[in-house]
């Protein structure tokens, strides 16, 4: 019996449906655009192909209505739009490379999308409460370490980086999955130890530095990332793992000193690597001066990508009217340049802003969550997306040296799609929790017999 009728909180599911339909509409238009530019006819299988994407999106939307009805309504449309644009651009590159639709990479990307969504939905359905994950803190940490280290032993090298393993006929980048597991491990570990890390320490130069023994985890993370870099030649993953750890440490402890320490250790590590590894020096040269004589010999991909972006200008050549295939790996590492060439600054800004909004929604969920573990995990996963986008686009646009990471949802690649859809499922799960109103105090529970013992596992 409530005296005051409360206003029902907005769940936003209808908004989500509308925006998702809009996203699919944009993707279908882009698809028709590519097809008309290349073959001058509307794709014959338009309804079928569009139907697959619409079906995937609708399934996800319905599961959200069913299992996470308060989930943030902006996340799904953004992800659908990014994934759809990615498939269209890959399809466009299939045509340029002379691959038929059925043999092309776009179909595989669609297939991986379907699998990724299926796994994500399974996660959403099975995982009713993200706090359950806290129980698996150390399992996740161990699994992440194993996955990251796996390619050292059974991996093989692609373009100089040893980050791939083969599973039957599939190739897989284990570090992709490791990033979620690591976020879970960091969140669980930091929630446990944050008081020690936050409160003890010595003051020096006005900053409180942690005690030596509390430095342990940071040191381990640093050494681990250096080892990964050394053995697998994978600068991108190192940067991501280390950045994620420092960010989460800062959130947990609220102490700037961790960041100062982390950055100086990173700088130290970078200096060591720079002086010892010639390929890293090449990367730095390509970053600072790709248009020099030596740069043009060493940094062909980056130079071609930049020339592609430049040729796009403000409005782009138009989908299907540029020459993105002149850049090596135009559908994976350099898909941003491919998009920039054909959709122009308008397109690249749209992509960057979509990612920015996605990350912002994740961080907002983190703030809305009421448990420390959830806050850390949501912030960590959001920051992983931000970092990855920054490292990839920043590498292509020469903000930072180029490293080999893929752009979430856009770039071609199965492991990346699976992982990022799962990551989004976790974010949606947590945003549902964050936005769900506080449960009414259950009278039945208050009247529960006092002898009943509630166990917390």
């Amino acid at each position: 019996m409530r005296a005051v009728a409360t206003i029902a909180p907005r769940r936003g599911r209808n908004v989500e449906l509308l925006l998702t339909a809009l996203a699919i509409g944009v993707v279908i238009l882009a698809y028709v655009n590519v097809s008309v530019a290349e073959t001058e006819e509307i794709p014959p299988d338009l309804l079928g192909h569009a139907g697959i994407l619409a079906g995937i999106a609708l399934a996800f939307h319905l599961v959200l209505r069913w299992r996470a009805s308060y989930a943030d309504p902006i996340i799904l449309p953004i992800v659908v739009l990014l994934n759809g644009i990615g498939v269209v651009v890959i399809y466009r590159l299939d045509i340029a490379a002379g691959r038929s639709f059925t043999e092309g990479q776009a179909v595989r990307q669609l297939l991986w999308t379907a699998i990724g969504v299926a796994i994500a939905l399974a996660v959403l359905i099975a995982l009713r409460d993200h706090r359950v994950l806290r129980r698996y803190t150390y399992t996740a940490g161990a699994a992440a370490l194993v996955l990251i280290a796996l390619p050292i032993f059974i991996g093989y090298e692609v373009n100089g980086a040893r980050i791939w393993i083969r599973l039957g006929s599939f190739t897989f980048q284990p570090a992709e999955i490791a990033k979620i597991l690591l976020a879970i491990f960091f969140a669980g570990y930091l929630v446990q130890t944050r008081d020690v890390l936050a409160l003890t320490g010595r003051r020096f130069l006005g900053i409180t530095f942690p005690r030596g023994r509390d430095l342990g985890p940071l040191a381990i993370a640093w050494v681990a990332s250096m080892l990964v870099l050394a053995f697998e030649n994978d600068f991108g993953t190192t940067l991501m793992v280390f950045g994620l750890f420092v960010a989460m440490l800062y959130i947990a402890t609220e102490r700037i000193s961790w960041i100062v320490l982390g950055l100086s250790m990173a700088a130290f590590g970078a200096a060591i690597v720079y002086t010892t590894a010639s390929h890293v020096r090449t990367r730095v040269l390509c970053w600072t001066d790709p248009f020099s004589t030596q740069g043009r010999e060493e940094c062909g991909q980056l130079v071609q990508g930049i020339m592609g972006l430049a040729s796009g200008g403000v409005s782009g050549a138009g989908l299907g009217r540029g020459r993105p295939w002149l850049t090596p790996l135009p559908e994976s590492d350099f898909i941003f340049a491919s998009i920039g060439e054909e959709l122009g600054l308008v397109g690249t800004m749209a992509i960057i802003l979509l990612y920015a909004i996605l990350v912002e929604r994740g961080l907002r969920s983190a703030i809305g969550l009421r448990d420390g573990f959830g806050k850390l995990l949501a912030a960590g996963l959001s920051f992983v997306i931000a970092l990855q986008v920054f490292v990839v686009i920043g590498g292509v646009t020469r903000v930072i040296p180029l490293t080999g990471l893929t752009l979430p949802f856009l770039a071609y690649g199965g492991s990346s799609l699976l992982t990022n859809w799962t990551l989004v499922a976790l974010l949606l799960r947590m945003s549902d929790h964050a936005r769900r109103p506080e449960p009414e105090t259950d009278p039945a529970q208050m009247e529960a017999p006092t002898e009943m013992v509630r166990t917390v596992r």
Partner: protein
Amino acid sequence: MNQPIRRLSMVVAVMFVLLLVASTWIQVLGAQGIREASDNRRTQLDSYARERGQILLGGQPIARSTEVEDDLEWQRVYSDPELYSHVTGYFSFTYGSGAGLESASDGLLSGRDDQLFYDRLTDTIAGREPRGASLELTIDPDAQQAAEQALGEQRGAVVALDPSTGDILAMVSHPNFDPSPLASHDVPTERAAWERYTEDETQPMVNRAIGGNLYPPGSTFKIVTAAAALESGDYSAGSSIPGPATLDLPQTTSDLPNASGAACGANDQVTLAVAMQDSCNTAFGWLGMELGGDAVAEQAEAFGFGEELSVPMTVAPSTFPTGLNPPQEAQSAIGQYDVRTTPMQMAMVTAAVANDGVVMRPNMIEQVMAADTSVIDEPEPDALRRAISSDTASELTDMMQLVTTDGTGTAGAVDGVSVAAKTGTAQHAEGAAPHAWYTAFAPADNPQVAVAVVVESGGTAGSEASGGSSAGPISKAVMEAVLQ
């Protein structure tokens, strides 16, 4: 924990702003420079993807683009490729465009020039593929053909100008090259041709008419020295000046001899007119020292020495040395020492004499036409400056006529037409045959054409070569072609 998450959001915001700034820089602010990078394949492909303008002579294309069924879409085709190789230049996918109008007027031909802005705009609005502008040239095909044939296998160059307008009527440089294989879409063909042309010691792709190493002008430079003398007011065609068999050069042990080894006139004295007619070295050497290096240099500059011109191909500036001592003044006055010039420059000197003393800007573009054949630009004759007074011009004309009637240049005389000319036989290296020069204009009373010819290292005549005998007939052939 909310405070650090908010701070982290700010960090994320900064990261994304950095990405936006970097994208904006590459795609907008810095894009122009990146697009213009010489090895930007996209820009190269773009220029192939649209129809490049034609290069026309009297409405007939000597370079045009035809549609083909390959990636590059348009194939450049040259008619008479070797005859016009230094006019058209080449348009190569691998090696870019160069050596002629393909490079000098690339903006117009490719359609990227600002002059074509409105055409591009309307094309874009109408959904048409933008097309390049076409160039109608001032070249006279008969004169070009005559120059080519007369020069034959010899190395050298010929330039013919219309003295009153500066229009280039012929421009031939030997050896020449065939631009067609360079424009091939087959990379090995392109490469083979490129290697053949660039590794050839005779440098077939250098346009000797306007560039290259430049030549010492030899006695043709005496026109400039004579002009300086007349302009000084102290001399006239009838002035008597010293013309001994050898001129003693002060401050040195060497002498300046006459080519014939004899004195130019009785009592070692000669009139300026006869000194010109017989190309008397000692008289002009003496004159150079009397006038001084600065006066001759000033006169040379008035004719265009030291000035870079575009016709629209770049003409290398001819040079006259500065800070000369008397023996150097004497040598420079007869076109030796460090005087270096292009056939184009010598044609300009002669054309200025023909044109009442006024130097016209040389140019080979008659009209620029948009793809719809509307005229975008029609360069007007442009007077660079007055080099000499009208009186000096007419006195020089009279003196130069003597060269073809009674002097060293009779081989360049044209039947029934009065030709004003000057020969030159330029020593350029110890033991090497001299360069043979001939520059002339005709008819003397109503000039229609001015010509400069150089035959490198004596051509087929070798060490027996002289300006009159080797270069004169070539000048004659070109003039006949223009005047007929």
